[in-house]
Each structure stands twice: as C-alpha cells, then as structure tokens.
C-alpha cells in the first residue's frame, strides 16, 4: 500500500533525483518478488532465481532502455526549467522597468532612435554596397576602362574605349569570356500605350546578354550580327517598360516602336528586378560601333563604355595583367598607346563610385552616436544597479546565485536592447523615407529600392543584442562583485557608490566625450567642405534659370537646315513669351552632361610630341542668347550673332581658361584653330572670350572650353539635334513651363520636351552627396553633444546627490559656496579633459578617413578641431554647472537629517 518514501531518499532528492538508482531499485524489486513467487510454488532458491531471470528477460537491456528514457525526460525538464526561469527573469525585468517609467522611456527613446538611425543607414548601405547585382554570378562582371597617364597627352583615370581598342580586347583577351561595348542614350520613343516620350536606353554590342548572364523572360536577346551597322533595329524591353507601356501583354514580341524615328522590333522582355546600368533604362538595343567609318578606325576617340565577364577561374588582377600585356604589345606598333593602360573594376564599384566612402563615413558616424548612447545607458544602469544594491543583497542572502543575478541583469539590458531593436525596425525604414522625401537627390541608390530585407533584419538584431551586452555588462559585473555584508550593514547609505564603480562611470563619460569630439569634428570638416563647394564660383548664375531638353528625331530632322530652322523658330517664340529676360540653346549644360573633350590645333603651333600634353577642350554648340541666359560674361570680343550662319566664315568663342592655357600672354582673338580628323580642313576663327564655366563639378579644376555657333555646326560628328533650352525669367515656374511647351508644340507638335529642371536644383543635385554627408554628420554631431551632455550632467548630479551629506556638513561649518561649486565644476572639466585628450587622437585619425570627401579643408584643420574642443568644453561646463549650483543650495539641516 501507499506509504511515505524513506527519509534517505527524500534527502537524496534534495540533490536532484537519482534516476539510475531508482531504476535499479525498481528492477530489483520485481525480480525479488518473482523469486519469492517461484519459491512459494516449490522451486529451490537456485531454480527460482533462474526461472525469475528467464521470466524477466535481460536486466541490462531493460535498465539501459529505461535510462535512455530517463535522460530524455531530464533534458526536457531542464529546458522547461530554463524557459521558466527566463520567463521569470523577463517578468521581473518588466516589473522593474514599469516601476521607473521615466528611466525606461528615456532609455528606450535614445536607444530606439540610435538603433533606428543605424538601421536606416545600414539599409542604404545594404541596397548600394551589399545586395548582389541582378546579373548571373555578378562578381564576375567587370567594368573596362582606359586610363591615360600624362605620357599619353592627358591624364584621366576612368576613360571610355575606342573602337579599334575594343575590337582588339574582344579578340585577344582570354581571361574575359565576353565583352560588350555600350552607350547610355536618351531617345524619343513612340509606341505602346501613351504619348511619345523621351526614354533612357542603352545601346550595347551583341554579347551584352552573355556579359550580364541574364536571359530575357520573354523572347530572346541579341544575335551576333544584329549589332552590325545598317542592321534592322531590335529592342529588349525592361520589365517596367513592358508593364507601363505594353500592359505586360505577352504578344509584344514582334511589335514595332519608333526610337528617334527609327523603326525597331521588340524581340524580348527582361525579368523583373533586372537593371543595367540603372533602373532608369527602359530598353536595350544593339550598338553599331562601326556606324561611322572614320570613328571606327580612330584609336584616339574614346567614346563608349565597355564591360566584360571574367572567364571561369580568372581573377580580376590576372585579367587586368593580361589586357595590359596586350596593350604593351600594341604600344610597340602604335604610339597612341603610349601611356595608356587598362583598368578593370568590379562592376558594382563602377556603379557606386565615391558613394562607398560617403556611405561608410555616415555609417561610422551613426555607429559612434550609438556607442555614446550605449555608454550613457551603461552609466544610467550602473546608477540603477547601485540604488538596487540592497534589493540585490537581500536576494543574495536568500540564496540567489551570482550567475542568476548576472543573468537577471543581462536579461534587463537585453530586454531593453531588443525593445530598442523593435523600435529601430519600425523607425528605420521611416527614417529612410523621410530623408529621401526631404532631399531626393542625396540618398544614393543602385537599382532596387532600399528595403528591409533579411540582411538589414539580421544587422539590426545583431547590433541590438551587441549593444545590450555592451551596456549590460558593466552593471552585471558590478552587481556580481557586490560585497554582501558591507551592503547590508551600510543601511541608509545605499546610494554611495564605491570608488571603483565611480571610476568606471567617469571613464564611460570620458569615452562619451572622446567619441563626441570625433563625431563633432568630422561633422565640422564635412560641413566646411560642403560650404566651400557651394561657394565655388561655377561661372554661371543658376537662380531664375530654367533648363529643358528639346531633342529632335533624327529621321524627320536629317537636314541640318531643318534643325537650325526649328531651334531658331523656337528661340524666337520663347524670347517673345512674357517675363522671359533671355533665352538660348546649348548642347551641354553645367552639371547635367559633361562636354565632349576634343583635341585641337591652334594655327602656327606644332602638334604636341608624344609625352606632351595635347591641346584640348570641351566642345559646346550654342545659339545667340545662350551666354546671357546662362549668365556668363563676355570678357572680350563679341558674341555669336546673325552673321554667323552656315556658309559664313567659321567662328568660335573660347573661355578664359582656354585663353590662359593655350595663348598665355597673347590676345587669342583673331587666332584660328582646327580639329583633327576630317574636320581638319576647317579653320575656326576666335571672335570672343567668355568667362570660365565649371561644367563637371565644383570639386574639379576648371577645364578649357570651346564654343561654336549652332547655326554653323562646323564639325561632322555633332549633328546639333540634342539641344537644351535655357530660359531666364522671374515668371512663375508652372506658367512658364506651360508657355514653353506651347511654344515647342507650335513649332513641331511631335517634339517632346523632357527633363525640365530649375538650374538651382541641378546645382543642388550635383552637391547631393556632400550635402547628405555634411547634413547627416551635423545631425549626428548634435545628437552626440546632447547625449554626451546628458552623460556629464547625470554623472555630476549623481556625485552631488551622493555627497549631499558631506557638502551639508561643510556648508554648515561655513565653507565657501563658490569653492564647493568650483570643485564640482572641476570634476566635470577633468573628465572632459581626459575625454578631449583621447578624442583628439581619434578625431585626427577619423579626419584622415574622410579623405576624398574633404574639399578646401585639411583633415587636420586646426580651426575645426579648436572649435570642436571649445564646443565640448562649453557643453561640459554647462552640463556641470547645473549640478554644481544645486550642490551649494543644499540646506545643511536637511542634508544632515536625511
């Protein structure tokens, strides 16, 4: 019958159940009873034992089976217990946080925002730098550039290729399995649903689809020979184009469209998500690099981009070495190749360019702010842990283990961190959206949208947990180092921290100040760089200036006379619009397209020898009125006017940069120049000099430019059909645009007006990245200062509070209030000094990392660092002054009584 377990067993159970002893007992009991049964039936003890063992079966197997089950149960119980404890810890942590809602809210707000900002920046980094490009084995795709060193006559790092060079590489390079030349274009498009439009497209040689390693989902790619000059035009649509203009119909194949007047047949549709080189590109078509006989033979005309696929097993460096050895061989045959090299670049890098540095710097900045937030939280948690020392001591006295206490503290900080992480996942994408809507041009993108994918999710979770461990470790160890007896005895003085923990807190605040200084000075350098870039005189006046593309279809405007008539009619109509101050057309606009750079020969000067720099400059077509509209002053000579038409003597205007570079100490007016190739028969007489214009970027040095009248179009390759209209007017933008559209329509209703933009915006866009970097870093700097100041304030308030007693006594004994105040202030400033000393070193190093992002300011700019340090000293003093003042307001009586 049922009875009480023997005492010894209950005792054993205190140390946990002894399962294998239990099994032994049970089995033995059974066998013994069997033996007794058999003896009772008349068997001898020996026979009874044998019979019992037969009846029972193999004892060892039974035992081992039972033990396996027992172990499985033990593990399951341990797991359940662990979850149970964790749940307990979490419940306890939630209760503790709920008791201090102010602290909890402050901690979650700073941490959530800090982590959110990190998530936001990382999601952009992920989209631009990490997400694989939508190509087959994307890491095998490489951009191919020419690099020319001064020996070649110019110095450019990333230059396009010429036709003969491209053909040579294509034929000879074994480490590239496929190469394709391509050119980015904008073309007038008619077809599908909707009105005529101007679309971005890429012309590429037939191997294009082999290089990208992606096939159309519908139809086919280019066939060999389809890129031959004179071949029938075929196009492959992007998924976006297929959806918007063809309603994703599957019968688009073999339909035709018009591109710049040419009839093209749709042969394929690319998969969704594919882009090359940007998402703007709506279709791909064959690129006839041989279309112009002269151009296709000229090694010096580097006019298109190229990319290739590395052969299986070939590395980028090996491929680069191979093509450069080919180049060396050609150098012996043709001195054009003197000083020419080939540069292979992972394709992503060619898309991302300098954005990588910008993004990594911003990520670093936001990471540092998070570090400051963590240090601050660690400090807050240390104070909290201190104020809970009695609670903890009591728990220890009641038998809670150290490990359990550490786990409890870590649970609290991890819970904080995870909640912060959840806030981050909610706010991060919103921050990206906010930033993009505030400054659409500033946030870099490559292809797809900036989304919350698995990588961003993983990053946020990892960083959240890491921060949790980071700021949770200090209080956890402080608690575990607690001396039980002292704490329990020191009743009433539970707030006083030990000297070690105070030193730790000072160290954390000093770390905050050091990090602050690094962020603030990086922000200072970037803001100054941006201001210097903004202040650069770009040579034109962007305000009140509207620009738009008016490109004529090639088929209808094959005749140069028709082209000229269109543009002069348009100019006359626009000039007559109310409120228009000046208007004109140009083939190139600052910061929108870079001028084609061509070598020319001034009359009476020998051609440059190999190794000498060639005389070259941007070549730009203009109509009368263009310089006025752009706001470029005439320095000497005259503007183009009605005399400068086809048939009249050819004229040119150069800018001051060209005048200084090529006619130093002379008056270039009246001098003549001519271009190379078939244009070499024409002499252009210089009739005027205009102010220099910076077409490329405020960051780059001025380059020489040559302007020719659109009415004369003295050079062969430039057909003058893609002009940009400039309109200077105070009139309201909307009305003006409508009026201009009307004017274009009146001249020819089939001509599209595209890319309408205020030149102010164009300039702002050109400075988008520096503005992003400067703006975000400034924001991070301010955030760092606020959090850092809170850190100083919190620490000193704590010190004052814990010394209330002592200060009270001193004041009662007649101590000078000013002296007490100074003492507290000094404590703050001592910490600041340590922080600043460390921070200056860090800031100098991080300044170097900014590298190419700096403009017009040294990475070690003394003024910036001095300002940064002064700001920090000021902020620290301010943050220390409030607690210092409170210290002297201590009423001795209250202080002593408390």
């Amino acid at each position, binding site marked *: 019958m049922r009875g009480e377990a*023997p005492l010894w067993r209950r005792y054993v159970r205190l140390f946990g159940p002894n399962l294998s002893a239990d099994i032994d*007992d049970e089995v033995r009991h059974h066998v013994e009873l069997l033996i007794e049964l058999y003896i009772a039936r008349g068997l001898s003890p020996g026979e009874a034992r044998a019979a019992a063992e037969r009846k029972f079966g193999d004892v060892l197997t039974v035992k081992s089976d039972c033990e396996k089950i027992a172990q499985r149960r033990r593990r399951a119980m341990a797991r359940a217990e662990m979850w149970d404890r964790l749940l307990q810890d979490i419940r306890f942590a939630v209760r503790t946080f709920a008791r201090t809602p102010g602290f909890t809210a402050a901690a979650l707000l700073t941490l959530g925002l800090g982590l959110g900002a990190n998530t936001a920046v990382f999601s952009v980094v992920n989209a631009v730098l990490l997400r694989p490009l939508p190509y087959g084995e994307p890491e095998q795709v490489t951009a191919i550039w020419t690099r020319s060193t001064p020996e070649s006559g110019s110095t450019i790092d990333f230059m396009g290729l010429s036709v003969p060079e491209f053909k040579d590489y294509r034929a000879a390079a074994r480490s590239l399995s496929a190469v394709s030349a391509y050119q980015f274009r904008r073309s007038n498009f008619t077809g599908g649903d909707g009105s005529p439009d101007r679309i971005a497209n890429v012309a590429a040689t037939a191997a294009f689809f082999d290089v990208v390693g992606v096939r159309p989902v519908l139809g086919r790619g280019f066939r060999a020979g389809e890129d031959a000059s004179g071949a029938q035009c075929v196009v492959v649509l992007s998924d976006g184009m297929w959806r918007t203009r063809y309603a994703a119909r599957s019968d688009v194949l073999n339909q035709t469209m018009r591109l710049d007047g040419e009839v093209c047949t749709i042969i394929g549709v690319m998969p969704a998500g594919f882009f090359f080189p940007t998402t703007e590109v709506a279709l791909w078509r064959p690129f006839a690099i041989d279309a112009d006989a002269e151009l296709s033979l000229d090694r010096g005309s580097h006019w298109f981009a190229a990319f290739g696929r590395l052969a299986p097993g070939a590395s980028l460096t090996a491929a680069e070495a191979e093509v450069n050895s080919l180049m060396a061989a050609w150098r012996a045959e043709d001195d054009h190749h003197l000083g020419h090299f080939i540069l292979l670049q992972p394709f992503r890098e060619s898309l991302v360019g300098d954005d990588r540095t910008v993004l990594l710097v911003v990520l670093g900045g936001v990471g540092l702010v998070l570090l400051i937030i963590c240090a601050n939280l660690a400090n807050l948690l240390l104070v909290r842990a201190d104020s809970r020392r009695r609670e903890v001591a009591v728990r220890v006295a009641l038998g809670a283990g150290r490990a359990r206490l550490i786990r409890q503290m870590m649970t609290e900080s991890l819970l904080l961190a995870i909640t912060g992480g959840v806030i981050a996942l909610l706010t991060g994408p919103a921050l990206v959206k906010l930033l993009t809507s505030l400054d659409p041009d500033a946030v870099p993108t490559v292809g797809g949208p900036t989304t919350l994918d698995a990588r961003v999710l993983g990053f946020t979770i990892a960083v959240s947990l890491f921060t949790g461990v980071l700021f949770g470790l200090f209080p956890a160890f402080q608690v575990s180092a607690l001396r039980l007896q002292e704490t329990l005895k020191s009743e009433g003085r539970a707030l006083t921290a030990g000297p070690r923990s105070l030193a730790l807190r000072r160290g954390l605040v000093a770390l905050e100040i050091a990090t602050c200084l690094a962020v603030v000075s990086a922000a200072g350098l970037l803001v100054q760089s941006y201001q210097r870039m903004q202040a650069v005189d770009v040579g034109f006046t962007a305000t009140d200036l509207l620009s738009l593309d008016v490109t004529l279809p090639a088929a209808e405007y094959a005749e140069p006379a028709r082209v000229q008539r269109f543009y002069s009619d348009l100019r006359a109509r626009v000039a007559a619009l109310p409120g228009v101050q000046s208007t004109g057309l140009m083939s190139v606009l600052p910061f929108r397209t870079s001028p084609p750079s061509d070598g020319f020969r001034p009359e009476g000067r020998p051609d440059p020898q190999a190794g000498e720099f060639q005389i070259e400059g941007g070549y730009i077509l203009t109509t009368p009125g263009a310089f006025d509209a752009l706001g470029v002053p005439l320095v000497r000579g005259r503007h183009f006017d009605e005399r400068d038409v086809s048939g009249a003597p050819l004229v040119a205007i150069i800018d001051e940069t060209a005048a200084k570079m090529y006619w130093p100490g002379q008056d270039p007016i009246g001098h003549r120049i001519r271009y190379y190739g078939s244009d070499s028969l024409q002499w252009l007489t210089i009739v005027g000099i205009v102010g220099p214009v910076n077409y490329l970027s405020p960051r780059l040095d001025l380059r020489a430019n040559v302007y020719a009248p659109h009415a004369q179009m003295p050079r062969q390759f430039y057909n003058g059909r893609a002009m940009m209209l400039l309109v200077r007017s105070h009139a309201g933008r909307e009305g003006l645009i409508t009026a201009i559209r009307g004017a274009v329509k009146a001249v020819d209703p089939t001509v599209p007006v595209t890319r309408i933009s205020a030149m102010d915006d164009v300039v702002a866009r050109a400075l988008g990245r520096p503005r992003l970097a400067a703006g975000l870093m400034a924001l991070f700097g301010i955030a760092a200062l606020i959090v850092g100041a809170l850190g100083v304030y919190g620490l000193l308030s704590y010190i004052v509070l814990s010394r209330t007693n002592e200060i009270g006594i001193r004041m009662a004994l007649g101590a000078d209030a000013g002296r007490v105040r100074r003492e507290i202030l000094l404590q703050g400033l001592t910490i600041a000094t340590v922080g600043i000393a460390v921070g200056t070193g860090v800031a100098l190093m991080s300044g170097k990392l900014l590298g190419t992002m700096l403009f017009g300011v040294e990475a070690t700019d003394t003024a910036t660092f001095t300002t940064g340090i002064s700001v920090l000293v000021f902020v620290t003093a301010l943050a220390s002054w409030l607690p210092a003042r409170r210290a002297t307001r201590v009423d001795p009586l209250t202080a002593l009584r408390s």
Partner: protein
Amino acid sequence: MPENPVEFLRGTMELLVLRSLTWGQAHGFSIARWIEGATEDSLTIEEGTLYPALHRMEERGLIEAEWGVSENNRKAKYYSLTEHGRAQLRSQTESFRRYARAVFLALEAPARAG
C-alpha cells in the same frame, strides 16, 4: 502455461497496463501478475519490457509514479492513471474493439461466391 503463447501485438501492452491500473495504483510486479491472470497466461511477455513501457507512458503523462512501501514493507514504485491516461484507455479500448471485430468478421466470413 499453454503450449503456444501468442506474441504481444504492438500497442497492446500499453492498453493492458492502462486497464490494469483502473482498479487503483500498482507496482510493476503486480501489473505483470494481473496481465498474466487476466489473459489466462496466454501472452508471452518478458516482464522486463514492462518497465521501458511504463516509463515511456509516464513521460507521455498517461500514468504517474510515486515511491511507496509495499505490503511486505519493501519500497516500491507505484503507478497510477492520470486523467489523460483514463481518456486514452477509453479511446484505445474502443478502437481496439472495432479493430478486433473487423478482423473476426473477415476471418469468419463465408467463402467468396463464384
């Protein structure tokens, strides 16, 4: 002991153990005795295999165990049915009945016509 004892069908031992515990708690030996008596000793069983079965059933929450002292004052592990075990017994008994009936029906059915 009959001449040709029958092997246990899978799952039957569990059913018999559950059934044996309906009259109150019992230790392994008395469960074995009950099965022996109730089946008129016609099922072969190596009684040791009872224990892994008992422990597994305990793990699954069909029965629970408790150490106690037996009639002749020896400590023994007593098993008793849980609510879950009781429910299991009901449903298993029912399905075993249906199963056995179906098998008998088939075995005793007349020969196929034609």
